[in-house]
């Protein structure tokens, strides 16, 4: 009987873990999101509501200088850099040039 309970508990945990792993919030992948609003009420812990293609999360923006509408890369709850729109354009231009050349 104890074995069955133990097995059931492990199975439920594995299901939960599987769901967690499928969640976009994979530990190792920082992904870009758009700043919806800012909250400076705690100066040591500046926060923002960030939209990741429809999923909104609270992200700490203490290390970046951002305004509403900017895109940040968020990792494990922190914004680690601001996506540089000009550089993004430059890279896309380079890639398009490659499409023409090859």
């Amino acid at each position, binding site marked *: 009987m104890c074995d069955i309970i133990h097995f059931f508990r492990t199975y439920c945990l594995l299901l939960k873990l599987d769901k*967690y792993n499928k969640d976009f919030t994979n530990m190792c*992948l920082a992904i870009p999101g758009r700043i919806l609003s800012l909250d400076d009420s705690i100066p040591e812990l500046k926060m923002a509501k960030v939209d990741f*293609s429809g999923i909104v999360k609270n992200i700490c923006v203490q290390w970046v200088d951002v305004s509403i509408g900017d895109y940040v890369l968020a990792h494990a*709850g922190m914004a680690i850099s601001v*996506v540089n729109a000009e550089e993004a354009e*430059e890279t896309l231009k380079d890639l398009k040039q*490659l499409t023409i050349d090859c």
Partner: protein
Amino acid sequence: MKYIDEYRDKEQVQSLVRAIRQVVTRPWHIMEICGGQTHAIARYRLEEMLPEEVKLLHGPGCPVCVTPVGIIDRAIGLAKRPDVILASFGDMMRVPGSREDLLQVKANGADIRMLYSPLDAVSLAAGHPDKKVIFFAIGFETTAPVHMMALKEAVRRKLENFYLLTSLFTVPPAIEAILSDPESRVDGFLTAGHVCAITGNEAYHLLAKKYKTPMVVTGFEPADLLLGIYRCLLQLEAGIYKVENAYKRAVPEEGNPAARALMDETLELCDQEWRGIGVIPQSGLQLKEIFARQDASHFLPVPEAVSNAEDESAYQVRPDKKPSSMGRGRCIAGDIMRGTKQTKDCPFFGTLCTPDHPVGAPMVSSEGVCAAYYRYK
């Protein structure tokens, strides 16, 4: 999804592959050291698109995989205490310690919580003043400052019950260890874009020059990865070796000074054991003495089990799963991470060692090289 979809564009990917085929004239080995890149390369099957001459190697870029067995045993020991809530990233739950993993320990009643962010552990500590809340703080330079942010926030809120059990690694010493190995086959490196978003590129300039090896800061989407590989190949074919940034939209040359200042304030370099590789001097980060009170490693003595990476038993096939015909087995994760072997060289890959019953850490973590190859093969 802005800033993602554009870099998954099929035409871009195909033109990059064509460009790579045009530039390659001889065999090259390119290594990445980043769990996220390992995973993306396997997921998008990028290696299959590349010409045969280009071999991708997967270095020790997954902190889940390289966390030493002894520290996992320590985390397990702490989690079993009734006055402790252990919080961890989900990836760590099924990594085998010397006898069991955190998931089994949780199934047996230990209070272990899976969290997305170390900052959530601070709220947990505030909500459970009667418990010691310990966050299993693993990571490279991208994640280390996030753990430190949680630490500072706990201090700011005067929480006496918040602790960190750290297992923190830095990338440049691993690159140095790999390149200084006489058996190394690595010709060029893709550096982890998000690590560089924090650290900046300075350390890599020194390495590129010292070992005459090109290093290209690379992102994670298919076009980003192929662009990084392409730029690395251009350098290799031309015989040049410098640091190039192929992920400029996310990585400024100077990285993130605020995050680094926080790391300087709270952490110091230390010798660090890497599971599967051994001790690499000055390759880890530990809490400074002033934060000794929040350092959970002081709670328990080093477990007797396995604190030595050379101990064969840490990598043996688990006795209950040992087939009589195979004899003593050994996980070759270390050889794979150093680039001297590949997953296809492993006798257990896909048979005795699968994500359901893993032998070593790289088959457990979703960012581990073996799990990535298994899932997408």
